[in-house]
Every structure is written in structure tokens, then in C-alpha cells.
């Protein structure tokens, strides 16, 4: 009997701790969203957990604030992220598929290379990458942000793990006998089978590209080409909007709202995807 009471007390204490940690995660975001709807005067007066009615006012301030165009940056970020995601998913799946089903001379080498490269973050050689961009004449263009997606070692590794459990060699063999080309097999048989995994990978690729601040920051100069994180950095840098707290909070909220919405809708895929990418060495 007393053991049961002990467990219940322990359980209650654990729930309290969990709720506190959950509040640490949510409160900053909640305050941001609420403050995005309040006037600067209200924000300076005190904290509130209730939204106010100044959303449109804040948007007008943000929209007219100088040469920065938040919507344009949003469009740029969407374009870069979508193309990057498409390229990452297609070529990584293709590469992982080849490693999984064919026996060719470079198979072991490619797999070893993938395992080695997932340890090395791209940032390590950013200065050398900058020189490549200059040499290729790609400064201030989107090519250096999009094209490296062809060679995503992490994505190849993820798909390699994923395909191990879902490749059906008999099916591929049957299609081959029916006269289907190798690329046709990949497109018509493998891609539909791997769709759930591709979807999970697409989310990670999209978020990774969407959040990337460092690379575009070094490469893009023209303000019209700026991505969302760059514009956010300029905004918090404080020259234009320093006194307009409501507008500032709104700018921040706009930059992460899409990710939060996508996460609420797809959290199941995302959480299972993390464990899948990390485990099964």
C-alpha cells in the first residue's frame, strides 16, 4: 500500500518537472506570438498572456520599414528550400538505391565515403567553399545554396537505412524481365515504395535549408536576394525597428510560424525520422 502511495507522489513530482520543462520550450514562443499582436506601448507596460488587437498595425510598421521586404525574403526562402529539398531527396535516394541493389566496384568506396562524410559538417571548409563560389562566378547567386544538395551524405545514409527494410528484390527482378529500364524501375517501383521515408527526409531537408543562416549570409549581397534568416538578422540588428517592439516580435513570428504549423501537422513523421536516422549503425 505505502509503495503505491510513494509511486504516486513520485509520479506527481515527475509531471511537475515535465510541465516546467515544457513551459521552458513553449513560453518564449507564446510570448513572441502574443506580443506580435500587441502595441509597443502595451509591450513596454508589462507581460500579458492574452493577445491584443494590433496585429495589422504591427504588420504595417514592418511592411513599410525601409528597404527590407519580409515577404520577398519569405518567397526567396521558399524557392531555395523547395528546390534544395527536391534535389536532396531525388539524388540521395538514387545513390542509396544503387548502393543497396547493385554490385559495382565503387559500392564499398561510396558507402565508406558516406559514413565518413556524415561526421564532417559542411561548415568546416566554408572558406574554401567561398573560394569555389568566387571561382565559379556564383557570388550573389542561389547556385551555391542549391547545388550542393546533390551530395548530401546524411540523406544518403538515412535512405540506405530506410531501403534496407523496404527493398523487394523480387519485384525489381520481375520488372526487369518485363523490360522495364533501370531508371524506370527506380521511378516507377522504388520511389512509390520509398515515399514515406522520402517524405520524412524531405521535412528535414526543408527545415535545414529554411533555417540556414550562415552560407547565404556569406554569399548573398543584394538585399532583394536575401533569405528570411538574413532579413531577421538585419531586423534584430536593430537599426530600423529598434523601438517598434510589436513589429519586431511579428517579424520573428513570421519567420518561424511556417515551421511550427508544419510541425503540428507532421510531428509523428518527424519524431520517428530522428530515431531512424540516428540508430542502426
Amino acid at each position, binding site marked *: 500500500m505505502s509503495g503505491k502511495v510513494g509511486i504516486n507522489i513520485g509520479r506527481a513530482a515527475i509531471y511537475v518537472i515535465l510541465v516546467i520543462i515544457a513551459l521552458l*520550450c513553449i513560453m518564449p514562443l507564446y510570448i513572441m506570438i502574443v506580443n506580435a499582436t500587441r502595441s509597443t506601448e502595451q509591450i513596454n507596460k508589462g507581460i500579458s498572456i492574452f493577445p491584443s488587437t494590433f496585429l495589422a498595425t504591427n504588420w504595417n510598421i514592418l511592411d513599410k520599414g525601409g528597404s527590407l521586404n519580409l515577404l520577398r525574403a519569405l518567397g526567396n526562402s521558399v524557392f531555395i528550400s523547395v528546390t534544395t529539398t527536391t534535389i536532396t531527396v531525388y539524388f540521395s535516394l538514387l545513390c542509396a*538505391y544503387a548502393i543497396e541493389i547493385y554490385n559495382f566496384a565503387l559500392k564499398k568506396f561510396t558507402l565508406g*565515403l558516406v559514413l565518413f562524410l556524415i561526421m564532417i559538417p559542411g561548415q*568546416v571548409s566554408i572558406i574554401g567553399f*567561398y573560394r569555389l563560389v568566387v571561382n565559379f562566378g556564383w557570388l550573389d547567386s542561389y547556385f551555391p545554396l542549391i547545388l550542393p544538395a546533390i*551530395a548530401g551524405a546524411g540523406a544518403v545514409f538515412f535512405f540506405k537505412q530506410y531501403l534496407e527494410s523496404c527493398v523487394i528484390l523480387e519485384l525489381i527482378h520481375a520488372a526487369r524481365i518485363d523490360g522495364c529500364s533501370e531508371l524506370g524501375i527506380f521511378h516507377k517501383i522504388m520511389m512509390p515504395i520509398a515515399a514515406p521515408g522520402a517524405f520524412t527526409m524531405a521535412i528535414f531537408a526543408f527545415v535545414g535549408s529554411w533555417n540556414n543562416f550562415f552560407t547565404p549570409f556569406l554569399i548573398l549581397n543584394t538585399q532583394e536576394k536575401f533569405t528570411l*534568416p538574413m532579413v531577421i538578422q538585419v531586423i534584430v540588428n536593430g537599426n530600423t525597428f529598434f523601438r517598434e*517592439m510589436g513589429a519586431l516580435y511579428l517579424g520573428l513570428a513570421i519567420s518561424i510560424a511556417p515551421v511550427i504549423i508544419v510541425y503540428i501537422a507532421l510531428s509523428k513523421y518527424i519524431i520517428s525520422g530522428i530515431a531512424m536516422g540516428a540508430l542502426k549503425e
Partner: protein
Amino acid sequence: MKGKIRLGTKVDRWGFVFVAPFLIGIAIFTLYPIINMVIMSFQNATNRSFTQELRFIGLDNYQAVFNNETFMGSIGTTWKIWFMNFVPQIGIALLLSVWFTSLRLRLKFIGIFRTIFYLPNLLMPATVAGLYTMLIGNQGPINKLLYNLGISQWLASSGIVSENRVQVVAGIDGAPDAISIMFASIPEFMTGMVAYIQWWLWFGSTIIIVMAGMTSISVSLYESAYVDGAGGGTIFFKITLPLLRPVMLYILVTSLVGGMQIIDIPYIFGTAGGIGRPGGTLNEFATMNVVMIREYFRGPSTRNLGLAAAAGMVIFAVTLIATIILLFIMRIGKDKEPKKLKAKKGGV
């Protein structure tokens, strides 16, 4: 099952074709930049568009980097920030994973908690840095909360926060003589803040990975230990932790490698809303990458890509050496592992 069906060498040629884009991509976008960086670190590349003739100048760049106190100081700062965020991260992840997977506790809403804990990991670091800058600002919500609770007054009067770090801000809840603490001008606080945000961004991801590792441990192992009279602590240290080794190694290595590259949060902190401009707190939380970019890449007077490449090589070396030491330590530990348990590990 695999390999039993002979595909024939003709078909296998397609393997080359399919991995070719990846290999070419790696050669261009990974290998070529690394080679570039190595070469540039020995050259006088003082101009960002490489219009001047590049000469080899021996080890001059390295010498300049090693003599740069700010950069050398940032190596320690990077380690400090990584350590301050990693220890609580792995500690909390282990504790919460034990709770979440405990058969005795049978907690509810685990899925919801996990979903909430992971959310920060997906957020844009630039925005997160901006948001926290505003939260801890002189007029920010945290200062208001601390003042309303009387904590600001106590911190100021007890001398924990020195006088020149306290600002009189009229208007907090109408009080004309309200005070706020200028957190941004306290170097120790800002370093802690960077570490906290790194923790905030990554602990949810670590929990999910540790939990997945724990749930893949066979339940029968726990049951037989329980029958043998082993307590919760014994079970954790003798069964759970040894069997989690591959997962822990993965987390340690990825966290360390990533931790050495930290840039977004401290960089934006260093430029946001005047933080660090007057008091010179900037270097206190500047990581290796931040100093490299700020001093050598963007610095108007010191713009020098040769130096930046040399600094990049140092960062690369620090990361590599740390990883090798880590793998070595984990390997030593492995030999002590009981053989019986090792055999059952396969699934992880």
C-alpha cells in the same frame, strides 16, 4: 536474402551511373573546398575577390592566427559553451528517458511531452537568437517578471549584480523608478545564455535518440534483473548504460562535432541590438567560427582569406583531434563491458 539473386554485371553498371551525381557532387562541393582551404591557408589571399596574384607565404598565416589572442581565446570559449550545454543535455535526456520508458511509473502523455520538447530544434537559429535578445532586453519580459517578483531589486541591493549593470527604466507596470538588469552587458550571463539556448535547441532531439536506444533494449533483461533483486540504480548502471554505448557514442560525436562549429546564436547575439558594442562583452561568448568570420572574413581592416583559411584549419584540427580522443576513450571503456551483454546488443 540479398545477393542470392544474380543480377548480372550488365545491370550492375547502372550502379555507377546512379552514384555518379553524388560522387561528382562530393568532389566539387566537399573535396574541392577542403583542398582550397588547405592551399589558401599558405597563401597571401588578402582580397576577397582573388584578383591579386596569390603567393605562397609559408606558415605566416598560421603564425598570425596563433598570435591572435581573440581567436586562441575562442577555442576555450567554444569548449566551455559546448560543455555547459552538453552535460545537462545528456543528463536530462537520460533521466527523462528512464522515466518515459519505466514500466513501474507508466507515465501518460509521453508523446505530447516529447513533441513539445523537440519543437525548439526545428526553429530558425537566427530567429531564436533574436527572440532571446528581446526577452532578456532592458524592457523585455524577463526583466519585467524579475522586477514584479522583487528579484531585480534584491539582486541590485545585495550587490550580486553590480551597480553599473542596473538601469532605471520608467514604465514597468507604471512604476517610475523601476529597475532592470542589463543582462546583455554581463559577460558571464551571456556565455551562459548561449549555452542555455544550445541546450534548449538540442535536448529534445537527444531525448528522442536516447529513448529509441532504451526501448530497443530487451525487456526480459530488465525483468530477470528485477527478479534477481537488482534496484533501479543497479539496473541503470549495469544494464541500461552499457547497452546504450553505441547510442551515446553517436550523440557525443555528433554533438561535439556540431558544438565546435557553433556560430549562429553567438554571432547574432554579437550584432543584435547593441549587445557587446559598448562594454566589449563580445569576445566573452565568441566561438571559433564567430571570431574567424568577424575578424578575418568580414572585418573591414583585417579582411584576409588566407588568415581565415588558416583559422578554419585550426578549427578543423580541433574538431578532428577531439573526435579521435573521444572515440579512443569510448573504445577503452568497451573492453570492460561484460561479454554476455555484448552478445545481446545486436539490435541497436
